[in-house]
């Protein structure tokens, strides 16, 4: 790979390596990295739930939560605590094993993906050579949780929601994978960190602009597919409150419901981070070619830029959700198989031609 020693090559990692023998330092660093990711996973939804409620409220000409903390900042903490203390109910006839296993799977999947996200130059638990493939493989896990939840709930609404979701996730994964493949193709690496580093330079060196025209198309395609992959509006047919009451989460309450809830928001964050990594230069500061401004931007730590870009993408997801009506299940499939997939394949082929011809912005 390279000379960077994973896990954790930052100051804390060096400190641990300096004070412990190599083998135990390796383990301690690993545990520290995982603990950091765990804390992030636990805190991200708290912020995102608040953000979602605020964004939704302002789209809908109202204020949203205002009472708990400054501008309702502690509202999601209060909600989380409430969910924790709620009784966990299991419907009669539900399969205990599947019913209680199901909420854990999507949360685990999103947690695992978080471990390879490059938050900054030296803020990444581990950098796999085949990071992109790892992402595709692991994020596919969440569909098991949803299918299992629907199947074990012993409820027809849950089952319908799960079946919709299963079909949807599997279909849209193809589109996502093709766009990821395009990025791998143009950047020449499958490691997420290397993909970010391949976008060094000015803003125009980000993959969204670096491939003339094509990058923007790929970015939009990736956004649409990600929204569908996240089960969020306008593609939220698996929850579809007005149709299926709550889809696969109908029978869940308390902590098991909040696991699904948590997974949904962490997944949204992961989708935002991946979009940032692939198209918006990851943790790199936006360089616009003006000396002073560039210096100023460069002084801001990379992870700040990373979170800002991710929040922008998440804001786009929220914008979609609070603007559009929901698609129907067959329209969703049509959109994927008849529109997105052909376009994506064409984009991939064009990308290959671009690379072969060297039509990439210098």
């Amino acid at each position: 790979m390279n000379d960077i020693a994973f896990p954790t090559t930052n100051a804390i990692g060096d400190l641990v390596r300096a004070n412990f023998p190599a083998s135990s330092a390796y383990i301690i660093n690993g545990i520290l990295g995982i603990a950091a990711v765990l804390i992030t996973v636990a805190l991200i939804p708290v912020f995102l739930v608040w953000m979602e409620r605020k964004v939704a409220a302002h789209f809908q000409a109202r204020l949203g939560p205002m009472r708990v903390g400054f501008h309702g900042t502690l509202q999601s903490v209060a909600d989380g605590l409430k969910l924790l203390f709620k009784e966990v109910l299991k419907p009669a006839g539900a399969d205990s094993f599947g019913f209680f296993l199901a909420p854990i799977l999507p949360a685990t999947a999103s947690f695992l993906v978080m471990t390879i996200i490059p938050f900054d130059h030296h803020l990444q638990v581990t950098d796999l050579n085949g990071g992109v493939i790892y992402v595709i493989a692991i994020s596919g896990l969440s569909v098991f949780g949803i299918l299992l939840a629907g199947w074990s709930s012993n409820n027809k609404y849950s089952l319908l929601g799960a079946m919709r979701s299963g079909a949807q996730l599997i279909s849209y994964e193809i589109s996502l994978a093709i766009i990821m493949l395009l990025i791998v193709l143009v950047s020449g690496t499958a490691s997420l960190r290397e993909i970010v580093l391949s976008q060094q330079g000015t803003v125009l060196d980000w993959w969204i602009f670096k491939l003339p025209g094509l990058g923007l198309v790929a970015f939009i395609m990736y956004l649409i597919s990600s929204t569908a992959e996240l089960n969020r509006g306008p593609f939220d047919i698996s929850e579809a409150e007005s149709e299926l009451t709550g889809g696969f989460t109908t029978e869940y309450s308390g902590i098991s419901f909040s696991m699904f809830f948590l997974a949904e928001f962490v997944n949204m964050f992961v989708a935002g981070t991946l979009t940032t990594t692939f198209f918006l230069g990851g943790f790199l500061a936006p360089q616009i070619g003006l000396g002073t401004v560039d210096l100023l931007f460069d002084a801001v730590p990379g992870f700040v830029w990373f979170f800002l870009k991710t929040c922008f993408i998440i804001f786009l997801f929220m914008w979609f959700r609070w603007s559009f009506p929901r698609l129907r299940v067959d329209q969703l499939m049509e959109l994927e198989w008849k529109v997105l997939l052909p376009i994506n394949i064409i984009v991939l082929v064009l990308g290959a031609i671009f690379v072969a011809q060297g039509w990439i912005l210098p």
Partner: protein
Amino acid sequence: MEINHLQAPPGFTDTAAAEATTEEYYLNMGPQHPGTHGVLRLVLRLDGENVQEVVPHLGYVHRAIEKMAENQTYLQNIHLTDRLDYLSSFMNNLGLCMAIEKGLGIGVPERGEYIRVMLCELQRIQSHLLWWGVLGMDMGAVTAFLYGFKEREMITDIFEEVCGNRLTMNFFRPGGSSADVPDTFLPRVATVIERLKRALDEYQTLLTDNIIFQERTRGIGVLSREKALSYGCTGPVLRGSGVQYDGRKNNPYSIYERFDFEVPVGQGGDSFDRYLVRMEEMAQSIKIVQQAMETFPTGPYRSKEFSKYRIPTGSYFSQVETARGLLGIYMVADGTAKPYRLKYRSPSFSNLSAINEMAVGYKIADLITIISTLDLVIPDIDR
């Protein structure tokens, strides 16, 4: 799963087809379901996502309003009409008052008629705004719900100022209304009308022109002209199917014949047509209110009150075009202060009866849209 071995629930015409390659199953939608707008219960026979048959079950909010009517005086009955279709309470009041006026042979002063028409048309807009928002929510566009309520709130505030109530008005009386409108009425209506015109454009952008919305409603839930007539559908549902019938135009009551307005008609009878008809109805109602504002007269708002309303023996009928369709009121009087029999022909009941005709062959999601474009008010169905 052994679902298909269950016996078919009551009301279904036939059970699962023997040659079907997939297992059909029954799904109980409601009485507690977010998509049925109240306590309507639908039992569906489904093949996967496809609706094969819909059987509505009614009676979850049956309050025996028609029976109660026989034990209450005519004036006391007016407040019961509020509870039929609670979104058209002014129009329901008007229907009963017109029947009583027929029985007594009394008229309404000019100002009283103007108050009635203006309030009824404002309420039609108010009701359609709520329908618009709920339709959006049923299709997953929750923002539409709050936008609809934003403008609706302004109209509701006017009603509150006029009669003290926001939903169940109990305002019209035989010969006029229970009170005059306040001086602030006309200016406030003018403000709302200006606001509404802009809002309707906004709605156009938010939902009508949205490609997803059009895909979800065009060609969905088609109700042919013949079927609409044979099921006795009225109101926007009937007009959406291409029948130009509006109680205000074809059997004018009150002073509707004085105003210039059009009756929008759809072509194909699908969900989108019903949607467009209602959107255009709002614009037409604005037109009526504006015309009424220009010629709003002074003078008494109510003809002479009676100490007791005794209606001569006989039967009387009146009908009004509510926001949902024709409300017919058939009143049998026996000379006492209470009606011998009071029968309401409620529009939602007939509109709901066509649901199986419209929903079969479409998906569950379409069924929700269809219920929404029927604009059902469940207490109006059950009474």
